[in-house]
């Protein structure tokens, strides 16, 4: 482990590299791309939730002036997409949900394309539909996919220890069912892509994908183009949060239109379409039985979940892998069993969404931690501390907590918020209809990637020019979170250069090396390590060249402020650019170019889902203080105190931004956001009725960073992108109980639901 004690860039609030072009409006998002001859694509979606397509007549649309192509499933290879390979980009025989794509048009303008959609004639034969996963499991339920007549594409079973023994050891056993709801990403930049073929059949896609390299591999068979002929360019991305981690039908559809017309095609969603057709967070019904001994030791957790898979499979179906981790390893639990059934319905399907199942799992686990504490008459903090793991522990699921700031996070958040005293005081009851409460909850999440693919690595190629300017090619994408800036910081630190000398290139799959993608909070950790090591190789080369030139030993030298200096005194010996030039134009001419492919030392889980799947684990605790008006149900969050184990702060503003944004997103999940789906139909596909948190609503946020200095993380850092959104819903529901004595087992805690719950004893 190298911890840089006195740093120039690491830990400093370096301004975001891409901010200048964004504040001027110069940054070009996919919506802004204009190519010569470009056409506009639009998709015709099903108007039925479950039906056979009896007739599909596109002739009138084809004749409309300005229309260049109309395609249906018959015009495509029909190879399905997705984790379950069950999602054909265009549906031919049957539709299974309201977002189903049945035809697409490319036209001179968006207006003409929309008019053409209206001219397409569709006749359906309705089939019985099912919207409740439990109903979909019944023998007489409608079958959505022939390959799965029981409507179960996936089921998972996990065990650690012996739950029966755990139960026998328990003095208290509690059981509850938690219901978690549909929410959606609401990226400010909607989904869209631009596709273009050249004369030789090479494809360029301007895509907002978070995984450009896996994109090539996975889309190739679907569109019938070999991956080596696919180039992925990423424009500035208007938010991801996991929504761009899978490939959705609109991408191959856009590509089909480009191929059909021989022209570039831009296909961009409307906001309404974004609400209807982009993937949601996985809704979960989770039944949890937890056991504890009267001395407060956790004994077992037994979990059964049903996942509404929707009509097709995307990453939502894999959230059990993450849910499992929290069930098995958030706090020390020896015995655990976890069974999931993933069930098809005619509802919208879910993708990956910041936290990836962990919000749902933590809501359940941390609700029970409070209930268990109360049952054994311990305070919520003391109970958690008693069961919190310490550094060096390995969980029964095989996760090795080389560093573990859980205890420190609990103590810090509790101390800074005055939790213990307030909790006791508020629990005694308060006068008046407006009551206050405090709640606490922690999180565990991967902090060093997740080896769910054969490689969890990231490549970097670094070159320096004759002027001391560095170009870093990284496979890691910038989706707005600031990965680009963090990479520049690592490189600048190693090479003793100003940030302005570093240029990061990350948006062209033709020239950047492989990276698995932006997910699992892995980018600072893995791309950071990759860039840091590539920069160290360059540093070594430079110092050795300088040592030779100056007749000194490399250990006596340093790189500072674009110069080679004495390490001890800081005396400037030669300018860096000058050194590079002399290296370049020497008899044995050489330039500075280095590469690094960093694969984290994690392991894939075995068939029993066990293994040290991440190179590091992140922890955090949040305390929420809220006010609830028990006559209207309105909850107002007054203060959030957050303590996060981040390993090491690389960019203070960047990490604050992730916490501030994550807390707002988690608050929305807990209180205001609800994608209302009734009989498969989204009832509120607009910002007017789907409420994300707005500026006047943000609470006071007190952040503390616990720097446990991860041995594997770059300069000790862990990943933190998802952590801040994960445990706040649990803290809120615990605070609500503290305020009212009523416990809620489902989200969101909108005013009406809270009022109903308070009146019914929830």
């Amino acid at each position, binding site marked *: 482990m190298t911890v840089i004690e006195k740093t120039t860039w690491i830990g400093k609030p370096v301004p975001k590299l891409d901010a200048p072009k964004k504040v001027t409006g110069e940054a070009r998002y996919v919506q802004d791309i204009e190519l010569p001859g470009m056409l506009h694509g639009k998709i015709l979606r099903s108007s039925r939730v479950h039906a056979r397509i009896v007739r599909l007549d596109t002739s009138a649309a084809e004749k409309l002036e300005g229309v260049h192509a109309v395609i249906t499933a018959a015009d495509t290879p029909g190879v399905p997409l997705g984790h379950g390979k069950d999602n054909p980009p265009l549906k031919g025989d049957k539709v299974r949900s309201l977002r189903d794509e049945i035809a697409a048009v490319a036209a001179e303008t968006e207006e003409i394309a929309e008019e053409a959609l209206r001219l397409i004639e569709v006749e359906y034969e309705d089939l019985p539909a099912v919207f409740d996963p439990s109903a979909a499991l019944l023998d007489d339920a409608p079958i959505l996919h022939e390959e799965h007549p029981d409507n179960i594409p996936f089921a998972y079973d996990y065990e650690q220890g012996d739950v029966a023994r755990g139960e026998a050891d328990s003095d208290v056993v509690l059981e509850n069912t938690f219901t978690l709801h549909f929410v959606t990403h609401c990226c400010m930049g909607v989904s869209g892509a631009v596709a273009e073929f050249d004369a030789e059949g090479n494809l360029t896609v301007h895509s907002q994908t978070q995984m450009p390299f896996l994109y090539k591999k996975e889309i190739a068979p679907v569109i019938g183009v070999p991956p080596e002929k696919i180039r992925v360019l990423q424009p500035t991305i208007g938010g991801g949060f996991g929504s761009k981690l899978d490939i959705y039908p609109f991408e191959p559809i856009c590509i089909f239109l480009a191929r059909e017309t021989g022209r570039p095609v831009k296909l961009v969603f409307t906001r309404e379409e974004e609400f209807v057709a982009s993937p949601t967070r996985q809704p979960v019904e989770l039944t949890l039985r937890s056991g504890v001994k009267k001395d407060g030791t956790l004994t077992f957790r037994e979990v059964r979940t049903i996942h509404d898979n929707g009509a097709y499979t995307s990453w939502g179906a894999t959230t059990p892998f993450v849910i499992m981790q929290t069930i098995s390893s958030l706090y020390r639990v020896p015995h655990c069993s976890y069974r999931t059934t993933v069930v098809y319905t005619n509802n919208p399907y879910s993708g990956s969404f910041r936290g990836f199942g962990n919000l749902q799992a933590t809501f359940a686990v941390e609700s029970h931690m409070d209930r268990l504490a109360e049952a054994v008459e311990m305070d919520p903090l003391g109970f958690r501390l008693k069961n919190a793991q310490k550094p060096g522990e390995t969980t029964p699921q095989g996760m090795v907590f080389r560093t573990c700031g859980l205890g420190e996070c609990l103590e810090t958040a509790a101390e800074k918020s005055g939790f213990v005293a307030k909790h006791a005081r508020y629990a005694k009851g308060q006068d008046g209809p407006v009551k206050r409460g405090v709640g606490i909850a922690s999180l565990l999440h991967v902090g060093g990637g997740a080896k769910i693919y054969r490689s969890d690595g990231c490549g970097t190629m670094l070159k320096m020019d004759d002027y001391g300017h560095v170009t870093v090619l990284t496979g890691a994408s910038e989706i707005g979170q600031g990965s680009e800036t963090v990479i520049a910081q690592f490189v600048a630190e190693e090479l003793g250069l100003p940030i302005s000398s570093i240029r990061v290139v990350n948006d062209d799959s033709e020239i950047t090396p492989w990276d698995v993608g932006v997910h699992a909070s892995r980018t600072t950790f893995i791309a950071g390590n990759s860039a840091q090591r590539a920069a160290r190789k360059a540093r070594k080369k430079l110092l050795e060249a300088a040592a030779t030139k100056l007749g000194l030993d490399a250990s006596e030298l340093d790189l500072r402020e674009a110069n080679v200096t004495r390490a001890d005194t800081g005396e400037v010996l030669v300018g860096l650019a000058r050194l590079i030039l002399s290296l370049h134009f020497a008899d044995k001419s050489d330039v500075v170019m280095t590469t690094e492919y960093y694969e984290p030392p994690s392991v894939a889980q075995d068939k029993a889902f066990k293994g040290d799947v991440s190179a590091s684990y992140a922890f955090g605790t949040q305390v929420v203080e809220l006010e609830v008006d028990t*006559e*209207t149900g*309105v*909850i*107002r969050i007054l203060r959030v105190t957050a303590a996060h184990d981040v390993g090491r702060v690389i960019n203070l503003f960047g990490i604050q931004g992730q916490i501030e944004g994550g807390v707002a997103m988690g608050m929305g999940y807990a*209180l*205001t956001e609800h994608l*209302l789906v009734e009989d498969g139909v989204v*009832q*509120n596909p607009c910002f*007017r*009725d789907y*409420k994300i948190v*707005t500026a*006047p*609503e943000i609470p006071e946020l007190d952040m503390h960073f616990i720097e446990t200095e991860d041995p594997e993380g770059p300069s000790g850092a862990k990943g933190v992108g998802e952590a801040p959104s994960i445990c706040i819903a649990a803290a809120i529901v615990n605070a609500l109980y503290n305020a009212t004595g009523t416990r809620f087992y489902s989200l969101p805690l*909108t*005013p*009406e639901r809270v*009022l*109903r719950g308070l009146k019914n004893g929830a």
Partner: protein
Amino acid sequence: MDVVERYEAPETLQEAIELLASGDALVFAGGTDVMPQIRTGSRQLRPILINISRITDLRGISRDGTRLRIGALTTVTDILESALLKETAPVLVAAADRFASGQVRNAATVGGNLGNASPAADLAIPLLLLDAEVELFSRKRRVVPLTDFFLGPGRSVLEPGEILTHVQFEVPRNDFTARFVKFGGGTRPAMDISVVSVGVAGVVAGRALSRVRVALGAAAPTPLRATKTEAFLEGKGLDRETIAAAAAMAETEASPISDVRGSAWYRRELIRTLTRRVLADVV
């Protein structure tokens, strides 16, 4: 197919009236309702499109003796920032502060808000409390009390060829007091469409309220004057029992619906709770 055959931006009311009389016309001002409605198709384009934003005479707030006149093109921001209204009718300013967003407030007009005739119209409730009237112009001028103006969701007594030019009300007496509460279903101050809104006004003497006005928004097919509740409260001292009874009565006068923003049950709860709170606050 081009539905619109003619577009004009008249600068005087007279020109606008003549245009309206000349054929089937759609009028817009700030566009905050009309533009999204024509985009979704909930409002149909007509052969004539008239932009009345340029009729500067229709924008402004003035006092004429005891009458306060607000031109239909007065924006919500104008109302929010009016020193005259802050002094004479602060309840209207309070409602303007709860209206959408800054950008929408800058463009939305009082004439547009009333003409759109939503049962949740934020400005309608305080104007009902102020016994406002609207001035309608076609060939002739007519004045309609605001209580008679709304007919149903999105419908008013405005006839084809007619344009709403002014809202006016008597400057309230010094002992007039009014309160407006908009409940949006959460902690957003203004951005929500009302789930319900409640306004109460009257003359306070001791703990009694007279010349009572009670108005409810998003609680019925139109912005509603709860006249039974007003009659019940008239002259009574506002003790706890009276307030509770009035709140219950207001709820019975309302006929809220269930929609994505809230169920009828919840709206009824809120009407009772908010009416009770507003009445308690008024004395």
